[in-house]
């Protein structure tokens, strides 16, 4: 019984089509299904909303223009003007994370971003990309990022160590932040929903008491939508900050 109502059941991965390439599991699972759904819906929406490309935008186009200018301003302000070539990447990242988070809010659906494997893959993509970009753009000067100018020589080893650790922990903090937020939010929703059900089966008093977790769940749902947006925003803006470091390593 406990397994049936486990709040973690929603995170389980069930293969739909078993696939494997060179011994590596590539099964099409419920997670893959929702990735395809998110990307498919995003593609459908963005393409159809921008089809006319009207000078006076419709609803969908106005929304996308807002997103465009929002992300463009984010990239410009946090990563600098020379980060413009990476705008499509940041935009895609934001849209994918936001789409996955919001899609996960549909009851019974699967939240792609609630899996550390996914968020870590995205964070690693950012981390490896930014590090490579830093070395390609600046060569060895990129290492100046770890040795800020103006630091006393005696403190330099310590500072370099701290900077190195903080740099290396970036993909972990970036991925765990998104994953933990999604995980915790969805567990809370499930736990309180479970309270509603178990209290409701205890007769009249239980039903009356069940109003409280139910009301809490309504509030939490609103909060989770905020978190869904906020985490996508945080993921995108941190990517911009990291891009800034790669483009301008001298602090």
């Amino acid at each position, binding site marked *: 019984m406990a397994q049936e109502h486990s709040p973690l059941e929603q995170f389980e991965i069930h293969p739909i089509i078993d696939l494997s390439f060179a011994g590596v599991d590539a099964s099409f699972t419920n997670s*893959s299904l929702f990735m395809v759904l998110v990307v498919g819906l995003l593609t459908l929406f963005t393409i159809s909303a921008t089809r006319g490309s009207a000078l006076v935008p419709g609803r969908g186009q106005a929304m996308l223009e807002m997103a465009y200018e929002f992300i463009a301003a984010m990239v410009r302000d946090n990563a600098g003007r020379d980060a413009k070539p990476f705008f499509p990447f940041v935009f895609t990242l934001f849209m994918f994370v936001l789409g996955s988070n919001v899609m996960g809010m549909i009851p019974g659906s699967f939240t792609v971003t609630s899996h550390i494997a996914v968020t870590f893959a995205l964070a690693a993509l950012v981390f490896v990309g930014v590090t490579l970009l830093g070395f390609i753009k600046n060569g060895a000067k990129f290492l100046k990022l770890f040795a800020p100018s103006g630091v006393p020589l005696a403190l330099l080893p310590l500072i370099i160590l701290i900077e190195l650790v903080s740099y290396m922990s970036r993909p972990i903090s970036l991925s765990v932040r998104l994953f933990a937020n999604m995980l915790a939010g969805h567990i809370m929703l499930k736990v309180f929903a479970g309270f509603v059900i178990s209290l409701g089966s205890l007769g009249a008093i239980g039903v009356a008491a069940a109003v409280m977790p139910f009301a809490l769940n309504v509030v939490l749902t609103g909060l989770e939508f905020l978190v869904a947006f906020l985490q996508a925003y945080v993921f995108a803006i941190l990517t911009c900050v990291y891009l800034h470091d790669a483009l301008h390593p001298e602090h």
Partner: protein
Amino acid sequence: MVMILLAAADAAHEASGGLPQLNVLFDGSFTNQIIWLALTFAFLYIVLSQVVLPRLGSVLTEREEAIAADHDRARNAHREAEKIKAAYEDNLAKARAEAQASVGEARAAAAKSLADAQARLDQDLAKLSADAEKRIKAAVADAMTDIGAVASEVAADLYTKLTGEDAKADAVRKAVDAKLQSDQGAQ
């Protein structure tokens, strides 16, 4: 939040053996997520960067240009309107001055013609009164000559009545004329 998370994870661990998120890491099946993530993310990146974002970018610059052009046009129109307004006001002032001038002229002409008419009227009146005076004088003179004949007749009649003799008309006439002349001279 963290406590709930941990409690839930703990409960789940007892029930079904750990977080599914970690289980997939341990049994190696996480690769299916990463492979599908790579596929879908790459697809979304291509769609957005090749189709959607260029469209949005071009429509935004287009709009910016259109707005700038409209703004320019509005500014030009405003400037032109201002110019037209200034010209209009200029014309209005000119017209007003002209009107003022022509009113003054008309007034002067009217005054002049009035004065002329007055002068002519005065002249006519003076002439008329002079004529009238002349005519009166003639009438008086006529009356004076007639009065001599009438007076002679009356005198002759009186003389006849008083004396019973026929008056010599010539003599009476002479006497009356003389008397009249002396009276006139006395006057």
